[in-house]
């Protein structure tokens, strides 16, 4: 998008920190350059960096006015110094060093410019009615011995994303203007009826529809029966609605799994579990934007929960992709029922190893470290600004995610029962509220459903979305006010597919007419198709009774939010789109929503043919434990957690970090979102890609068990727990990939049924593959499982840290020889063996009895055993309590382990599920064990003073391992 030619040159302002104050942004830029230079020595040489914020203001302003604007809005009088350059003038070359400029391309969302524009108008600093054109940029002044070429490389690696930004080194030119408009177009007819197969596929790919041949045939047949060619707008609508992202064609399709016929995988596994369990606390499952469960019956208050994936956008622009991922799932919660109030965010990232050598990064991919830092910053800057605590989540590292990282974002909302359902009534006005529409994110829904390749970063540039959290915050305030005043009765968010999906879904059982020229635009020149499918963020669609329209618009106006009527719902069963009175689309809603063909896909599974590496005897027990604590998947995530506001709203009961020094990982997190209620809500999550590679079904059952353990360990009620499934998989056109998906789904069914915990919502992201030349890299099968549980009484929650010297440590549950995919195997370079799998006959009783014991305050601390097994869990409890522990493995009863399984190694590092370590006062041991009757609860030792550290006796009672708390802490604090 080229800028408007001929815009008059702007004023240019650059703000730096005064030299007597330090410059954290510059310091961090220097540190990042130095870290990069360690990987690529030719980029070494920078000695200092200063960072500056840049602004472009209209050239017609007077010099006095510009100084006034700088003083009022841009520079702090104590710490900043500003340099102002007249229109046309550029900064002189610095006496030493070089300058690097990064600016957003014209038309790319720029919240800072929006805020400045608003303030200028409000303070009457800009004369006249017209909206001034304000732009921003960044400057780095870099000293040191670096060539222009090296600086450009540094800029591209660290500071600029060429998809949305321009980078200039040694060139002070900055583009100033809006994207150039395109010639106006109305209805565009597409020739479809006469195409042969090759022509159909060319249309599908060239037009970025990404429908397969069978679907294209189906569309062609439909238009033959209608007797005319489709319009471009109609084809786009079909492509968005039929995308894998929106329709879940694979999950809802028919499958031949090694001879077993499965009609609709979703219905026959995950949804089947929910329907068969038929839990009375389920208020709304699967059909709305999020699942809803009952929270407090007396208050008629419910909880909504949704988790989304945002993988492909995050691969291309980690910061924007993750930010809009969290922004999108927050809108899901705002748009569930008649709107829920967000109370918590969750996030999970799956990324490549952070120390991956530069030469191993596939062409066209970003380095794993940049991806992780980018997605963390994206979630931080969006979630924190929304005032929603980010409380739960995780990071998992695996080579399989190098080219295709996974980003999951979830939101929990609080919703009064009376708002849990909504309706669309013919005659109601279609009201779009929130941000303006630009060319952002066009083809996002179809893009997220195809595999990435080397070119994706450029061809799908338009699919990138940039978020503006403050607009979303305003929308949220207006929406909840309008809800409480009863000003609308239909509601959904604009997500993938933009207005096309939002209005298309709302009108599914009615009909609608939409006037696209009424949609407020960020800049002129969008075609009707672009308006219709743009994925510009921070927009929602309401169905408003005509008599409430005026008041509804006023409520949003009071929050500075635009609300624009686009048309109305009707009972025609047709979706009619108009652009300045011309009909650009006229579609049958039945065909749109139910016309997708359901092919029969083949699925198969072959168990990997691997020898069982067993559990080797460990030569250096202390080094092994410390090595495990430093494993990227186990080591502390505190450096990430601290960047998120996890305390806003003031509901914290158990936060993400626990313990005396607040440095130990909590199992689940607990919030008390309703001060009128004694009840609280616990959140947990789990995933394990290595298990998935070896045995998808065992993986699914185990991650469900772990997500359950997370919440049960904090006093979440196992009988009032619900689950959310998020599958990210490779290309399911490949039978082995689909076979793994079938097995994982069967695992979901088995475990959910056994636990009596329904799935209430889910989302899948398939086709997570990356093509470089002829090689296709697929992600490991990844099921991210979230749990939400009602805690009966906030006063009785249990945290994971050791509480008191002398208290007993009990191991709950059975340890089996299950080290397949374990952290110990990874540390030792082993691969294969039995993947941990819960014994579903006993797991449920374990959870329920533990919960019963907590009810009677028998348990001082509880921590679940997961990656790294018993030894890691014990270390974490000790760190949290700042206490040592003495345990003795010889007291543990277990079945005989097979040959090749060293008893000590297996007891300490097996990852068998359904196990916990609990802390019990000596006087309560008998009572506890009677509460746990039938479930193994073995006293294995006691907590001692911190100075004594951790000591473990082996299965014959001999000293095996001794480590000080400092050693344990240091290992755990290793940053990948």
């Amino acid at each position: 998008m080229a800028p408007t030619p001929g815009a008059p040159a702007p004023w240019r302002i650059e703000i730096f920190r005064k030299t007597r104050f330090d410059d954290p942004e510059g310091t961090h830029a220097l540190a990042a350059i130095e870290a990069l230079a360690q990987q690529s020595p030719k980029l070494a040489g920078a000695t200092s960096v200063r960072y500056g914020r840049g602004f472009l203001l209209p050239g017609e302003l007077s010099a006095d006015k510009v100084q006034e604007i700088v003083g009022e809005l841009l520079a702090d009088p104590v710490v900043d110094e500003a340099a102002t350059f007249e229109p046309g003038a550029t900064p002189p070359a610095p006496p030493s060093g070089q300058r690097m400029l990064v600016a957003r391309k014209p038309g790319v969302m720029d919240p800072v410019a929006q805020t400045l524009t608003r303030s200028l108008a409000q303070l009457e600093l800009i004369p006249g009615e017209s909206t001034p054109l304000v732009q921003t940029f960044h400057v780095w002044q870099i000293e040191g011995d670096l060539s222009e070429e090296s600086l450009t490389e540094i800029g591209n690696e660290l500071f600029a994303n060429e998809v949305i930004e321009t980078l200039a080194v040694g060139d002070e030119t900055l583009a100033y203007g809006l994207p150039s408009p395109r010639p106006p177009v109305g209805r565009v007819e597409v020739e479809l009826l006469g195409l042969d197969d090759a022509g159909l596929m060319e249309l599908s790919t060239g037009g970025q529809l990404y429908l397969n041949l069978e679907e294209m045939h189906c569309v062609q047949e439909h238009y033959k029966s209608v007797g005319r060619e489709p319009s471009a707008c109609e084809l786009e609508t079909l492509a968005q609605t039929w995308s894998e992202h929106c329709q879940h064609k694979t999950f809802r399709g028919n499958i031949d799994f090694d001879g077993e016929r499965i009609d609709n995988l979703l219905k026959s596994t995950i949804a089947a579990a929910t329907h068969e369990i038929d839990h009375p606390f389920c208020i709304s499952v699967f059909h709305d934007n999020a699942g809803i469960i009952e929270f407090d019956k007396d208050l008629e208050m419910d909880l909504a929960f949704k988790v989304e994936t945002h993988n492909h956008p995050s691969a291309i622009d980690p910061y924007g992709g993750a930010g809009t991922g969290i922004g999108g799932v927050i809108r899901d919660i705002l748009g569930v029922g008649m709107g829920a109030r967000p109370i918590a965010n969750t996030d999970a990232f799956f990324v490549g190893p952070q120390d991956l050598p530069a030469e191993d990064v596939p062409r066209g991919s970003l380095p794993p470290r940049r991806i992780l830092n980018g997605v963390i910053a994206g979630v931080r800057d969006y979630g924190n600004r929304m005032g929603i605590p980010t409380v739960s989540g995780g990071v998992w590292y695996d080579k399989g995610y190098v080219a295709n990282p996974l980003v999951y974002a979830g939101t929990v909302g609080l919703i009064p029962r009376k708002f849990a359902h909504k309706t669309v009534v013919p005659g109601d006005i279609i009201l779009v509220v929130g941000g303006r529409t630009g060319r952002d994110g066009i083809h996002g829904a179809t893009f997220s459903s195809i595999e990435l390749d080397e070119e994706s970063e450029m061809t799908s540039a338009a699919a990138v979305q940039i978020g503006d959290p403050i607009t979303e915050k305003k929308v949220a305030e207006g929406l909840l006010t309008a809800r409480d005043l009863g000003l609308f009765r239909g509601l959904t968010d604009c997500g993938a597919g933009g207005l096309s999906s939002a209005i298309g879904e709302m009108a599914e059982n009615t009909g609608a007419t939409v006037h696209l020229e009424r949609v407020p635009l960020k800049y002129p020149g969008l075609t009707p198709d672009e308006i219709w499918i743009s994925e510009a963020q921070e927009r929602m669609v309401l169905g408003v009774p005509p008599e409430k329209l005026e008041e509804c618009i006023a409520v949003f106006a009071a929050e500075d939010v635009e609300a624009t009527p686009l048309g109305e719902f009707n009972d025609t069963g047709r979706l009619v789109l108009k652009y300045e009175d011309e009909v650009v689309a006229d579609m049958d809603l039945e065909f749109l929503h139910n016309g997708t063909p359901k092919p029969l896909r083949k699925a198969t599974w072959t168990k990997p043919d691997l020898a069982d590496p067993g559990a080797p005897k460990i030569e250096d027990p202390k080094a092994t434990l410390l090595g495990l604590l430093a494993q990227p998947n186990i080591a502390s995530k505190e450096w990430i957690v601290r960047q998120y506001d996890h305390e806003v709203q003031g509901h914290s009961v158990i936060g993400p970090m626990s313990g005396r020094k607040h440095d130990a990982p909590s199992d689940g997190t607990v919030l008390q979102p309703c001060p009128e209620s004694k009840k609280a809500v616990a959140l947990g999550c789990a995933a394990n890609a290595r298990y998935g590679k070896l045995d998808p079904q065992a993986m699914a059952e185990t991650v469900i068990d772990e997500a359950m353990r997370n919440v049960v360990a904090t006093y979440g009620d196992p009988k009032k727990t619900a689950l959310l499934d998020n599958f990210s998989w490779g290309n399911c056109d490949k039978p082995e990939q689909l076979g793994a998906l079938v097995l994982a789904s069967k695992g979901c069914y088995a475990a959910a049924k056994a636990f009596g915990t329904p799935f209430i919502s889910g989302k899948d992201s398939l086709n997570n593959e990356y093509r470089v030349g002829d090689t296709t890299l697929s992600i490991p099968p990844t099921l991210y499982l979230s749990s939400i549980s009602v805690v009966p009484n906030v006063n009785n929650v249990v945290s994971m840290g050791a509480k008191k010297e002398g208290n007993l440590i009990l191991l709950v549950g059975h340890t089996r020889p299950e080290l397949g995919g374990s952290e110990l195997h990874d540390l030792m370079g082993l691969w294969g063996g039995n993947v941990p799998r819960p014994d579903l006959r006993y797991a449920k009783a374990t959870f329920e009895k533990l919960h019963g014991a907590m009810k009677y305050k028998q348990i001082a601390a509880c921590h679940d055993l997961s990656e790294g097994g018993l030894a890691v869990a014990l270390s974490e409890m000790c760190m949290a309590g700042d206490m040592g522990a003495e345990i003795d493995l010889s007291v543990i009863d277990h079945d005989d382990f097979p040959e090749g399984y060293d008893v000590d190694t297996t007891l300490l590092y097996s990852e068998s599920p359904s196990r916990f370590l609990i802390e019990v006062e000596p006087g309560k041991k008998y009572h506890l064990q009677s509460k746990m009757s039938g479930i193994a609860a073995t006293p294995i030792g006691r907590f001692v003073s911190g100075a004594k550290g951790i000591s473990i006796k082996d299965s014959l009672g001999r000293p095996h391992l001794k480590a000080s708390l400092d050693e344990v802490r240091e290992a755990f604090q290793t940053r990948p």
Partner: protein
Amino acid sequence: MSRPKALVLRSTGTNCQEETSRALTRGGADTDVIHTNHVLHDVSKLDPYSILVFAGGFSYGDDLGAGRAWGAELRHFLSDTLKKHLERGGLILGVCNGFQVLMETGIFEPEASASTRKMALYANESGHYECRWVHLETLETKCPWLVPGERFPVPVAHAEGRFVVRDDEALASLKAAGQLALAYTTPDGEGDVLYPQNPNGSTAHIAGVTDPTGRALGLMPHPERNLDGWNHPDSARMGKRPEGEGAEFYSRLVKVAAGAN
């Protein structure tokens, strides 16, 4: 004693109004929440209130610098009103972004111009947002609802909370005037205060300041996030606490306002 009236002021992007309102109500005030858009052109709406609280969040995204856009707005439309509010004995509190905003309004240095301003809040030394629990110590202050010498835990959550001064002389004069009200400290008040006990690199570990009268207080930490005993991450081992220390911070504020009525 009648219940004093408290007003929580919010702006676009403010996000702590609910817990702040909860804290004031629980502390004994009749509390309202209002968007400053609705008072800028009718400042008499503030008259009935004896407590004005600027709540935390990200006003206008902090896009131009923390608190800058909202601060400029208040400086233009509400400066005189806030001054009069203090003159007639009213109290003002700014928490986190509310503190940053009050700093921008110039209320803490009523006699200063832009070129003579002594203090500012800016980017944390770590260069990024941080959320963690810290301990505060109350210094010798005129603030009528703080008790000098007290120590209490409280969470911080901000990216631009570093207190800095123009020069050493400025720090000395603020201290002499009793305007330095709260400082980060260690849990037991002993030993050097290091990162992360001082979470942002503030000069002299300062976490909160007042205007010359002491009746307008701004602080970076969030007492309203510590109303219940269980809010603290190590609460299980802190012994029986009927409520969080932040509850008393707000109830004393309300009591002082009630006494002034």
